[in-house]
């Protein structure tokens, strides 16, 4: 019955699971490298010095950052992307494989923009189509927020992100272009209305899921800007990847849950194709099958919720151990928030490893569609029709190699950042080191989970 429903928002992948030997090699390597890191950095600094990092000013970037062009260009691309999703989604082919809307949302926005933002910096800041539309309108007519946004933290943004994850992973609707377009329209209306009613930045920073998400991802990137009191950019620096996560950030359970959700949605995406999930799903079939399409949605959303709660409980339990061993009276929420950010590298590399074949192969299938994007028999660009996607970067050995290297690099970065963070939070070197053992164990567990998922045989839905 469900055989026709694609597993993901967009269902073309050519990955093979990594073999057992490689899995053991990578897992062993992760433990060994973690151990080396801990031994090497025993006796590092404590206090504010611990999280100081090198950075270099790039004067010519100040001019670029101050000019209106990056925002104008990014905004134009963002608005065109949004229009593509809506127009192609409503009027194009009903088959995800032949509809550009699906490519724009699930590959170019969801996989590519996230990965690039980790590599370069917060691209969503430039691309956000709703911010661009608002800015154009605000230029033409004076707008003033009607109400003040109550103290909501980033909870609304978290719900928006969760809803998006549900569209992709649990609804079974992500591969239906019309539904995707409808979701884009609804979310556009909500976001624009929110910005006009509560103020542009107030809404974006608290209620717009992608702004909050890319804000976190952008911290991993190598650029940082310093602003003066008036908000104008004073200086632009380059820094090593990852260290931006050590900078002061807003704290609160909402932020912690958001980071955990980043990890759990990605893990859930992988888990969906494992035999373990298939068995779980099969066991629950008597419960959800009578509910029809809603049952399918219900079973998966429940799975995603349970996984998120499990990740959160495990993280908080480990943090209790960290704080206990650190032996210092610290503000629990502030400390948990600060350590949560050190998990971001693991989420990012897992995203890159998981979406690798989407980005290098599936993304190319958009090119032949440019001739006839809406499937109406047009001949806009006949030259691209015969385009055959290149699989050069998708040989199994290359994919495995890229995945393992990425996961290990992310793991090393996370362990290192967490170590620096412990140095800053706890009073003595010995305490900081001791406090790091639970954190280290947790990170090894997360990394092993990612590797384990990548090593799972890909199974099929039986209908």
């Amino acid at each position: 019955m469900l055989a026709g429903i694609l597993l993901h928002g967009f269902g073309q992948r050519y990955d093979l699971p990594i073999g057992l030997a490689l899995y053991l090699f990578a897992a062993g390597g992760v433990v060994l490298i973690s151990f080396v890191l801990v031994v090497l950095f025993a006796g590092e600094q404590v206090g504010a010095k611990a999280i100081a990092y090198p950075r270099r000013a790039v004067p010519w970037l100040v001019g670029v950052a101050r000019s209106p062009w990056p925002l104008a260009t990014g905004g134009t691309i963002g608005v065109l992307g949004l229009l593509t999703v809506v127009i192609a989604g409503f009027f194009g082919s009903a088959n995800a494989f032949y509809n550009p809307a699906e490519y724009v949302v699930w590959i170019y926005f969801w996989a590519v923009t996230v990965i690039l933002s980790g590599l370069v910096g917060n691209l969503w800041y430039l691309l956000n189509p709703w911010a661009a539309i608002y800015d154009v309108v605000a230029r033409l007519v004076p707008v003033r927020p009607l109400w003040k946004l109550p103290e909501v933290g980033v909870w609304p943004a978290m719900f928006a992100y969760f809803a998006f994850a549900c569209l992709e992973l649990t609804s079974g609707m992500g591969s239906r272009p019309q539904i995707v377009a409808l979701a884009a329209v609804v979310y556009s209306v909500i976001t624009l209305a929110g910005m006009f009613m509560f103020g542009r930045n107030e809404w974006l920073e608290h209620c717009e899921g992608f702004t909050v998400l890319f804000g976190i991802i952008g911290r991993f990137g190598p650029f940082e800007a310093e602003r003066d009191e008036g908000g104008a950019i004073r200086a632009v620096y380059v820094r090593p990847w990852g260290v931006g996560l050590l900078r002061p950030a807003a704290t609160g359970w909402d932020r912690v849950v958001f980071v955990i959700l980043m990890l759990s949605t990605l893990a859930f995406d992988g888990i969906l194709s494992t035999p373990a999930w298939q068995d779980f799903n099969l066991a629950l079939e008597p419960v959800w099958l009578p509910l029809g399409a809603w049952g399918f949605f219900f079973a998966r959303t429940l799975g995603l919720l349970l996984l998120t709660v499990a990740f959160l409980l495990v993280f908080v339990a480990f943090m209790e151990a960290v704080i206990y061993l650190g032996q210092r009276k610290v503000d629990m929420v502030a400390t948990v928030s600060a350590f949560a950010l050190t998990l971001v590298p693991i989420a990012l590399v897992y995203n890159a490893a998981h979406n690798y074949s989407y980005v290098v192969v599936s993304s190319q299938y958009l090119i032949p569609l440019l001739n006839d994007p809406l499937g109406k028999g047009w001949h806009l660009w006949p030259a691209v029709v015969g385009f055959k996607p290149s699989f050069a970067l998708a040989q199994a050995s290359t994919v495995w190699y890229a995945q393992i290297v990425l996961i290990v690099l992310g793991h090393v970065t996370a362990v290192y950042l967490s170590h620096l963070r412990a140095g800053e939070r706890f009073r003595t070197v010995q305490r900081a080191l001791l406090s790091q053992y639970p954190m280290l164990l947790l990170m090894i567990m997360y990394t092993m989970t990612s590797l384990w998922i990548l090593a799972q045989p890909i199974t099929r839905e039986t209908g």
Partner: protein
Amino acid sequence: MSRTRALIVAAVLIVFIAAGGVLIYATRSHGGQNVTIDLTVTGGTKMNPTDSTAHQDDKVTINVTSDTDGEVHLHGYDIPFEAKAGQTVSHTFTADKTGNFLIEWETTSTELGHLVVT
């Protein structure tokens, strides 16, 4: 991070990454055989066997027999089998790409099975 420590971490990482590369590229399978796969499609919804395997660089011949008219599509390699009820359609190709490739009943986008090339 002091310079020596940074160097040690870099050295450990390089050794690990190099060893991984050797392990992956040295143990990959070498094909080159002739492989024939017979697939039977029933009603445009079921295929027997659902999953077939080949090694990279094998010369693969797929014979599709269907009891209904329609297109059976091997994704990735992008090979269409224009099936006519009761007749067998064959295509031969070199399995130069590795991966888990979807075989679909194209008209209804129904998943029939997979060709796995290792």
